[in-house]
């Protein structure tokens, strides 16, 4: 007798869609079949709807501890569950920042008490904690975050010195974990921002001109050279430019261990939207031109960019919606809206369901060492599943989102495709608009990632 059987479903696997049933035992997928469904303690009727692997969002800021007025792990993970995301990787620039094993441990315990979904935690690598990195990796850090320009609230501090950066790549490379880089060049940002300020600019494009593409490409190039020299695995966070994609593509072709993520906002918005959306779409690096967007689409389809990540980064209305555009906080929510937005793109035939699953589940799992435990519907994998209605049309409204600070540039967007239910390790955590049950999310522990996994898709 199985714990749970989901019957009459259309299960989307790497081998295609299976019309049939799926059985769960002890939180893992125990069987998939198309004949008559077996007996179980609990049965869920999917009524012919699609079941996708749960999403893995490799880049969220749930702000906990330290900035819980913006979000906490409970509200953030509830938003994840409502968005069909069953695993999140949380960034370390919380307060205190995750720079030591003690702080890692404390953060993990705090998150475990609140999370509705499974989670991995980043550790920060900055100029102060080089000798903590090995211990942090052993403790289960999913990856390391390195800022090449100062974040809004240091620590962690940016690594500006190339010798320190080399040592950091070398140390992290030895652990086998990815070096995840916020790739913008500090000196160029300062220079261009000052220029924009001096010109007295307050227009919506000022943010873009304060952080032009060159800021990103010089930082990516620097990081690629470090990865090539040390053998470390470089992961480029929130890629925003077509030129950046070109650098990553040629690095992959040369066999350098580099992977990358981009967000739905980089694919679906562009510089023409600033006039309408203002600070609502302000983030760092900035959302760029329609041409960048087109090049990023190409990059997610040809494998240059491996995965989708939201950079879910909520701020309060007070911080975010300032009249002074230059003073408004950067970042906005995303974990709840990514799947509906991308299902809309599937409906518009801009990508296939198989490609979407690869970008939102399989590749984050593979690149960060969770595959095949997560990221795939397959016997033996965790039963992290999302039941979706592919044809239901609805409007994204900030008031309906589960985040504490749900300001989004996608408010009012008509989307086609909605999440009906989300299961984490076989347990329903979200159903019909409601979070179900108590927080039972668990920390994930990555496995070693084989080099061949990262071999250029090209």
């Amino acid at each position, binding site marked *: 007798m199985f714990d749970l059987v989901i019957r009459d479903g259309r299960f989307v696997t790497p081998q295609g869609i299976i019309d049939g049933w799926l059985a769960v035992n002890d939180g893992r997928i125990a*069987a998939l079949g198309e004949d008559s469904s077996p007996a179980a303690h609990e049965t869920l009727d999917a009524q012919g709807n699609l079941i996708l692997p749960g999403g893995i969002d490799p880049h969220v800021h749930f702000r906990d501890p330290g900035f819980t007025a913006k979000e906490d792990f409970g509200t953030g993970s509830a938003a994840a569950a409502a968005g069909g995301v069953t695993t999140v990787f949380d960034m370390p620039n919380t307060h205190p920042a995750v720079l030591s094993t003690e702080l890692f441990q404390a953060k993990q315990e705090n998150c475990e008490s609140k999370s509705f979904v499974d989670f991995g935690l980043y550790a920060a690598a900055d100029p102060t904690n080089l000798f903590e990195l090995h211990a942090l990796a052993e403790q289960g850090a999913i990856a390391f975050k390195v800022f090449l320009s100062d974040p809004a609230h240091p620590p962690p501090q940016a690594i500006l010195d190339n010798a320190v950066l080399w040592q950091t790549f070398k140390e992290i490379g030895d652990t086998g974990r990815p070096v995840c880089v916020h790739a913008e060049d500090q000196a160029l940002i300062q220079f261009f921002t000052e220029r924009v300020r001096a010109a007295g600019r307050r227009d919506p494009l000022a943010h873009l001109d304060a952080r032009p593409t060159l800021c990103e490409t010089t930082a990516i190039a620097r990081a690629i050279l470090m990865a090539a020299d040390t053998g470390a695995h470089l992961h480029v966070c929130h890629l925003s430019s077509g030129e950046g994609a070109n650098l990553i593509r040629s690095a992959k072709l040369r066999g350098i261990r580099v992977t990358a993520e981009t967000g739905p906002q980089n694919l679906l918005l562009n510089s023409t939207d600033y006039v309408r959306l203002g600070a609502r779409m302000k983030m760092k690096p900035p959302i760029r031109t329609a041409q960048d967007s087109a090049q990023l689409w190409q990059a997610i389809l040809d494998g240059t960019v491996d995965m989708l990540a939201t950079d879910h980064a909520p701020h309060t209305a007070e911080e975010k919606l300032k009249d002074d555009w230059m003073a408004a906080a950067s970042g906005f929510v995303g974990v709840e809206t990514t799947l509906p937005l991308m299902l809309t793109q599937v409906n518009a035939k801009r990508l296939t369901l198989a490609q979407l699953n690869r970008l939102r589940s399989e590749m984050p799992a593979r690149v960060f060492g969770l595959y095949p435990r997560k990221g795939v519907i397959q016997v033996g994998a965790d039963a992290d599943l999302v039941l979706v209605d592919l044809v239901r049309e609805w409007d994204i409204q900030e008031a309906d989102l589960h985040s504490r600070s749900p300001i989004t540039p996608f408010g009012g967007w008509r989307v086609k495709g909605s999440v009906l239910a989300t299961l984490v390790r076989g347990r329903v955590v979200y159903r019909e608009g409601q979070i179900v049950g108590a927080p039972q999310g668990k920390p994930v522990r990555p496995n070693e990632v084989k080099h061949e996994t990262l071999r250029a898709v090209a």
Partner: protein
Amino acid sequence: MNLVIKNGTVVNASGTYRADIGITGERITQVAADISPDGAQVLDAQGKFVLPGAIDAHTHMEWPRSADDFESGTIAAACGGVTTIIDFAVQYKGKTLRETMEDWRSRADAKVCIDYGLHLVVSDFNEDTPREMQELVGEGVTSFKMWMTSSHSGGLGVDDGTIYQVMEVASQLGALVGLHCENDPMMRVLINSFLRAGKTSPEYHRLSRPPFVEAEAIRRVATIAEATDCALYIPHMSSAAGRVALREAQRRGVRVVAETCPQFLALTDKVYRRPDAARFVMSPPIKTAADQAELWRGLAEGDIVSVGSDHCPYSDERKAEGRDDFTKIPNGVPGTEAIVPLLYGKGVACGRLTLEQMVAVTAENPARLFGLYPRKGVIVVGSDADLVIFDPACPMRLDAKSLHSQISYSIYDDITVPGRPVATIARGELIAREGEFSSKKARGKFLARALPDPAIWEHARHV
């Protein structure tokens, strides 16, 4: 449920995991951590891999005067873990495409032991050809092939104008076109000069067909495919130079992929200095160790998407017809039974391919390219139960004794591989075990194939 494969490690191109497989009738109906058989037949695959049955998309099972026929050839295939072949139906001058297909179907249907599809070889383009091609695509013949060479094809080669016209029609239909890529006029110059100089031994077969004749032909047909927006595949690609030409075309966005053959992956041109060199004469010929290394690289990197055998063995008596003139040696080698053991032994066991890549090039990619996916080429609930149980620790010498073609020799007789298929299941039926065919003649069915799966072009995209 009729049959359960217990305790095996399931390998798909997309990944490997431990699971039992339940089969009801002809299809996979359950994949689970643990299936209780409840009276079904059980095959224990403990310590073994369960692979999708291989698809050999390049056979000439009943080529005139060759040693095998649809029965013996498909028995050999089945013993080697091949559960589907795609054979070439060849249009002889004066025959229509329909007559050609019906001729091949009637002979195959009477004998074939595994499922089969047909490619149609076009040798004559006339006013009826476009309509005939359209009808055949509707009936599941979705790939057309042509020879650019006449010398070894019995005068069935075509000129560039014919290639252009067939590609224009195929492009409209969404069908695939394959070309035997060798530059005929250049080869003939070389052949004639060798013969005039009295150089008649089998080695001159290879020397008269240097790699550039393949590379030039690939560039030419890629240009025509680009001009007509036609999907193109290059069967039996044999050289590093050919691969360069292939990748150039892929980089500029031409929908083109290549196949290579086990003989190119396991042997080198040294065979042409052996006393039995005639046995290795085929076109294109087997090339150097450096070429071989590039072909393995192409499989690993995805520009070469599949391995087909070009199975067409001849007896020693037939091969002896060219004793005094290499141009009279019938062209062809055996190979269908060697695909899976060689890809594992020389590929996976040597670290040149992963197990998943081996499955991609022997099963999933040919299934996608030739319109059989996901019915064939993958282990998933709902697909045909075409499976191979592969024992990685069961060494096998690929000599004539172990192989099943109707010839007295093996071209791999000094090769011992570390593992072999130990059971072959086709549409739910155990048809071969431990190298012995255990089913009946003519059990195979004709497969009406769909158009190529567009996903195949992503494999070969070079950015």
